[in-house]
Structure formats: C-alpha cells, structure tokens
C-alpha cells in the first residue's frame, strides 16, 4: 500500500497546469519549426509560423502564457488500486491545485457556472476529471488545459458500420476543412473510433496526448492517420486559414471495441497550442 498525501497532489496539479500553459511540448515545437521550411511558396504562412515560433519562445520565459485562452481544466487521473490517499478528498486537492495555478500562474478565468446563464466562476473551476483505476501503486496526473476555439470545431457522429473506413475519413476530413480558419489552424486532430456515445470523444481527447513523432503500432490505423493528414493538408487552408500547405500538424487515432450495430466516430480539434503536462507519483 503506497500512501500519497493530498497536499502533494495539490502542489503537483498547480505546477502541471502552469507548465502546460507556458511551455509547448517538444514534439509540437518540432512540427512548427518544420512547417517554417515547408511554406517557402507561401510567404504569409511562413511569416505566421515564424511568429508562432517566436510566441512559444516568448512564453517559455514564464511571463506570458502561450495563448490568452488558458482553457478549461481537464484532468486525466490514473490511480493504481494499491494507493491510499491521505489528507483530504483527492478531488478537492485537484480543484485547489487548479485554482492556485490559475491565480498564481496569471492564467485566465474562463469558466461559467451555468451553461445557459453564464456567470463567470472567477476561479476557472470546476474542472473536468476523468479517473481510471489501474493495477499497482502509481498515480499519474495529466493536465490538459483545453481552449475552446478549437474545442468548438470538434464533432461526434454515430456512424453506421457500413459507412466503413472511407466514410470515417470523409467525415473527419470534410469536417476539419469546413472549419477553415476558425479553430486556429494548423491543427492537431485526435480521433476516437468505437466505444459508445461518450467514449469515442474521450478517446479523441486522449489521442491528442500522443506525441506527434510516436508512430501508431497498428499499420492499418497508421495508414488511415496518414490519409486523413494528407487530405486535410491538400485543402491548402493553411495557418489561420490564409492559405498554405500546412493545415494539419498531425492526426492520431485511438480505437475501442464497439457494438455490432454501431461505429461511433469523434474527432477532437486542437490548435497548434496543444497543451498538456503530466507527472507520475
């Protein structure tokens, strides 16, 4: 039995949300640098990628966050079943950590208490916490501040199995293209296929955490990722929708078993500020 105190969890969550909002993951930085070179035929796009690079270099100095939309706080919690939580209630500790991050880290309070009446909660709470029980005694916390310009361009469809691979590809590609510049491309697309109505979108969000330089183990889905990626980039929407050969930095697919009558497909649109940070305690 391993003991973890909630005071430690609270501190780590605060650090993670601040880190995620100021420091872009290495794999995303690499794609941005590569894109500067890819846009030699589109001077405006090349300039924008150069500015995006300057932006993340600036935000690493920990004065200005990467984006003014410091997101809704999403947390993935993987709790080993041999862990004992000491102190207080783990959910309270996580929420307190987020509250502290958004105050001490000079992050924007972007949450409204009620979706229709819409009064700002002034502390960026509540968070959305997804919890999985794992074997063992490790606690993994992943902080995902998710901006909503991109989130609003995401979609779920309960497809019929007969629509098949081609149907899925068309749904995602056509959807992303119809978003144009609204989701703040270049984009990263997380795809969830299978599960049920709420599981496919969850997979899609998790897919956004996969490093862009990590190849899919399954050759069938690796090919599918490449086809979606190529087709989105062939649209020439470009960064911010101003035209260019780089509209998408990567596509990642996660799948799960599903019902004989169903083929739920979700894609979670992420902009180039693909922000996440994690720790294993």
């Amino acid at each position, binding site marked *: 039995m391993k003991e973890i105190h909630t005071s430690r969890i609270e501190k780590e969550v605060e650090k993670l949300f601040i880190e995620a909002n100021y420091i872009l993951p290495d794999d995303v930085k690499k794609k941005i640098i590569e894109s500067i070179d890819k846009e030699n035929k589109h001077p405006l796009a090349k300039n924008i990628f150069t500015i995006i690079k300057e932006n993340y270099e600036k*935000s690493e100095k920990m004065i*200005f966050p990467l984006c003014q939309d410091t997101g809704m706080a999403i947390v993935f919690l993987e709790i080993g079943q041999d862990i004992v939580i000491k102190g207080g209630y783990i959910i309270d500790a996580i929420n307190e950590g987020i509250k502290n991050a958004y105050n001490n880290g000079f992050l924007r*309070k972007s949450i409204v208490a009620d979706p229709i009446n819409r009064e*700002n909660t002034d502390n960026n709470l509540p968070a959305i916490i997804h919890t999985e029980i794992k074997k063992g005694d490790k606690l993994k916390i992943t902080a995902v501040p998710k901006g909503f310009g991109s989130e609003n361009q995401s979609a779920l469809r309960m497809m019929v199995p007969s629509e098949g691979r081609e149907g899925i590809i068309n749904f995602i590609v056509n959807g992303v293209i119809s978003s144009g510049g609204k989701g703040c491309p270049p984009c990263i697309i997380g795809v969830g296929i299978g599960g049920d109505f709420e599981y496919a979108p969850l997979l899609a969000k998790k897919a956004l955490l996969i490093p862009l330089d990590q190849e899919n183990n399954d050759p069938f889905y690796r090919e599918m990722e490449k086809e979606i990626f190529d087709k989105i980039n062939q649209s*020439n929407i470009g960064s911010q929708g101003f035209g260019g050969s780089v509209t998408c930095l990567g596509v990642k697919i996660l799948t799960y078993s599903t019902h004989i009558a169903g083929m739920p497909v979700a894609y979670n649109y992420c902009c180039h500020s693909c922000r996440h940070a994690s720790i294993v305690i």
Partner: protein
Amino acid sequence: MLLSINLDNNIEDLKKIKAGTSFKITGKIYTARDAAHKKIKEYFDGNKQIPLSFKNSIIYYMGPTPAREGYPIGSCGPTSSYRMDDYLETTLKLGVVATIGKGERKKAIVKLIKKYKAPYLLTIGGAAAYLAECVISSKIVLFKELQTEAVRELIVKDFPVIVGIDVYGNNIFNRV
C-alpha cells in the same frame, strides 16, 4: 507598401485597404467579446444609453489573461469572430469602423461590411504572448464585472493585422 496606420489621424485609411494586405496599427482600440456584446445589444435594443461611445472606434475580439505587475496586459490574442456575427450590426450602428479577430465569418457579414464600410481585420490566433508586447496600455472602461470579458481600452503600437474582408466585399477566406 503600406506599413503602419496611426488610428488617431488616419483611421479613415482603413477603408481603402484591400483584403489580404498586411500592415500595422498604432492607437486606441476597444476589446469586447461574447458577454460584452450581449450586454451592448441589450442596451441598444432597450433604447438605453451605453455609458461608452463606440463612435469611430475599433473593436478587438479578445479577453486577456491577467497582467503581471509591471506589465499593461497579459496574453492577448484574438478569439474567433464568428461568435460575434449576430451582434455586428448593432456595433456598426453604434459607430464601430472596424473589427479585429480571427477566422471566417458568416456570409451575411460581408454585406454588412460593404454597407457600413467597416473592414474586418485579422490578427494571429495563438500568438498571444507575441501580441502582448504590442500593447502599451490597457484599462477597463465598461462592464468591469465581466472580468476577462470586460470592455477594455487598449493603446497598441505596431499591432500586426491583415485585412480579412474589405469594404468592397473581397474576402481573404474565399479559396479557389
């Protein structure tokens, strides 16, 4: 080549610039997004005087992160303009001469832009830290209770923009 427009002296020049043209602006702009626009429309529809004049002004669709001590503003990139489409005509009737944001807008917006001769300008989404350094000062001037969504008066210097939809109806997003 057009480089920089001083908004105090030459705000009228904005009307003359074609879609796709990049340049910089220096001077005063207001910020307002979803919640502030809703309130502005409520005032307007209720024939109530808004405690701030928008005559001859520019609205930047933006809600910033909090400013650190010694800095005028936090990160301040544009939010997606299409969410303010239903409020645009109200602001144009109040005298707004240009809007700044990111992304495409509804088709009907092009007609409004031509009618009111109020171009839609774009700046770079996600370059929020970069754009913060173009802001010299910031103060809340309306709807303080909306916090990040309050209307702020910004003084900007060499703030980069590109014309998205010009007064002739040309649209940078019309792709071949």
